[in-house]
């Protein structure tokens, strides 16, 4: 599409202004998104767990039957079985009840059972979502994921915010394509020396063009995931279902099977699991039983993606007979274009469709997108180097750009240091806030220092904090490298290795910064 100069000028302004106004939030969401691609691995690392593909390595029927007789039928509307905290097998018997937040929640009884001995470890009553929130072991992973998903802004507002950031990223990517005249040439551009404006532009173009398809994909799927429940569902419910959101949810998720309310027992779960594994080609990660006490009960088994598949699989079986009912879909009663697209958004956004290989690619491209934001702000500020407002604005951005990763590492310290005897849920969050405040305080104390020196100091902090982290993890009851290799806990040594590499890279950057600081200062004052 050939654009005239006036149109290009306006699009360049839109490309710059829309991203610069939200640059700090965009950077935070992008950086945390890059990290939480490895959220499961971080969780196993933090809890020193060996990753099990399935929690159902033990005979499950005797345990289920023992617990099932203790629960009233009213609480068997939904039964969830899967991996629980502290290597336990988790059973939740519940039903939808009003009273949680601004909607309905799954209320019932949770049982945590030792899978090796069948001994009951814990029995609790409450909302299912609360049990997940109060799982102290998963506090670190949950904190980082929530930071990415909603920036810890409560309720729907956090999702509105991150959804809007997704749209801003999408606009930046689309306008980036429109204003670029030589996209193919920029794929192979080399940075021109001298630290000039053109050098920064080369850097921004190179990172931006390589991550362009990924930026379009991630911003679109991310915005959809944020807006679907927070805005899409209420709007569709208001117009098509007279404001009844529950009816809207049921319309897209509940299958139209025959309702038979007469009492019945579940067929052996072992037989259903065996059949499901043979059909899906992968072990089941969890299972759910709908209306467990009735003759129309349905057992659903959840499976990760088999080799060569983008999507995971949910298989449905009749509860009383164990007969195969078919493949269940996230939305809709049958496979359709809508259900396929809705199911694809998750794997494409999380990058978990091809195991560790796809995750590593997603981390690398996420890092390239984060760098695109940083270099974009750098370019914007460099072009306005004579304006004192932008000089201060850029300095604030630099402080936030260092403070966010430092605070994320601080939250890891908060988690590990309180895991054994304190409150890791509280201290993971508190350590993050304290580190952000400390960085802001340091930036004020160092207000007389040049940006090079500021970069160098913060990089040094981050590098040292990262290098010490595996040691602190080990000293707070974590698994050693030898144990991790012996027990096959790949995630433990992998994340340790990544932390050490990032720490070394940060220290290398700090050292290079120190060498650069010896060079004559740039006339603009912004580097």
């Amino acid at each position: 599409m050939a654009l005239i100069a006036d149109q290009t000028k306006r699009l360049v302004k839109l490309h710059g202004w829309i991203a610069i106004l939200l640059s700090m939030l965009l950077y935070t969401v992008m950086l945390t998104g890059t990290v939480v691609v490895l959220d499961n691995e971080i969780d196993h690392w933090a809890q020193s767990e060996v990753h099990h593909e399935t929690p159902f390595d033990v005979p499950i029927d005797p345990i289920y039957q023992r617990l099932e007789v203790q629960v009233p039928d009213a609480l068997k509307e939904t039964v969830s079985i899967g991996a629980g905290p502290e290597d336990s097998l988790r059973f939740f018997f519940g039903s939808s009840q009003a009273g949680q937040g601004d909607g309905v929640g799954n209320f019932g009884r949770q049982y945590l059972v030792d899978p090796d001995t069948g001994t009951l470890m814990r029995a609790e009553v409450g909302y299912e979502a609360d049990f997940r929130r109060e799982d102290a072991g998963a506090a670190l992973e949950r904190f980082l994921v929530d930071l990415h998903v909603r920036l810890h802004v409560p309720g729907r507002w956090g999702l509105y915010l991150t959804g809007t950031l997704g749209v801003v990223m999408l606009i930046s990517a689309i306008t980036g394509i429109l204003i670029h005249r030589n996209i193919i040439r920029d794929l192979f551009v080399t940075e021109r020396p001298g630290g000039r404006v053109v050098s920064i532009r080369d850097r921004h173009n190179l990172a931006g063009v390589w991550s362009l398809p990924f930026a379009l994909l991630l911003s679109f799927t991310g915005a959809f995931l944020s807006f679907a429940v927070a805005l899409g569902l209420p709007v569709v419910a208001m117009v098509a279902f007279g404001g009844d959101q529950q009816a809207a949810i049921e319309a897209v998720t509940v299958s139209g099977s025959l309702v038979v309310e007469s009492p019945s027992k579940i067929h052996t779960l072992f037989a259903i699991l065996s059949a499901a594994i043979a059909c899906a080609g992968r072990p089941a990660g969890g299972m759910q039983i709908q209306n467990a006490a009735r003759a129309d009960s349905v057992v659903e088994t959840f499976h990760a993606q088999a080799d060569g598949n983008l999507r995971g699989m949910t298989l449905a079986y009749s509860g009383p007979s164990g007969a195969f009912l078919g493949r269940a879909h996230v939305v809709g009663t049958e496979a359709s274009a809508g259900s396929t697209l809705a199911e694809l958004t998750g794997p494409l956004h999380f990058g978990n469709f091809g195991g560790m290989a796809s995750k590593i690619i997603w981390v690398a491209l996420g890092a390239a997108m984060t760098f695109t934001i940083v270099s974009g702000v750098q370019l914007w500020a460099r072009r306005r180097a004579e304006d004192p407002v932008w000089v201060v604005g850029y300095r604030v951005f630099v402080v936030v750009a260092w403070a966010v990763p430092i605070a994320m590492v601080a939250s890891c310290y908060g988690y590990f240091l309180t895991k054994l005897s304190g409150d890791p849920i509280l201290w993971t969050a508190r350590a993050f806030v304290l580190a952000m405040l400390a960085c802001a305080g340091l930036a004020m104390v160092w207000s007389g220092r040049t940006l090079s020196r500021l970069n160098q100091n913060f990089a040094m902090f981050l590098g040292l904090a990262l290098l010490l982290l595996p040691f602190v993890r080990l000293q707070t009851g974590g698994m050693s490298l030898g144990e991790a290799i012996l027990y096959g806990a790949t995630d433990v040594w992998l994340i340790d290795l990544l932390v050490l590499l990032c720490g070394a890279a940060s220290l290398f950057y700090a050292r290079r910064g120190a060498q650069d600081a010896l060079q004559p200062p740039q006339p603009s004052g912004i580097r």
Partner: protein
Amino acid sequence: MSGLLAHKLKPSERTLRWVLAGPAALLISILIMASFPMILPKGAGGVNHLIFPVLAFPLIWATLIILPVSTRRIEKMSMIYAALALLCLAIIGLSIVV
């Protein structure tokens, strides 16, 4: 006199671009998301009409922001936006009545 008043009341091109790319873009994309379930086919799974508008919402919003910024004919674009808003409102109104 009336011509002068009309000229005074007429928003500048810049204001029109701001209004269309700002509040109008958000409002119309929400209206599209709300009205299209009434006219799209349900599909085999019975959910296509509900999923597609929600899925397309970020893309529609982004497009409706970019168009008024890039176009040379902003008056024509404002007519299109007004027509789109009226069409969506008519679909919603008809679905409530029928």
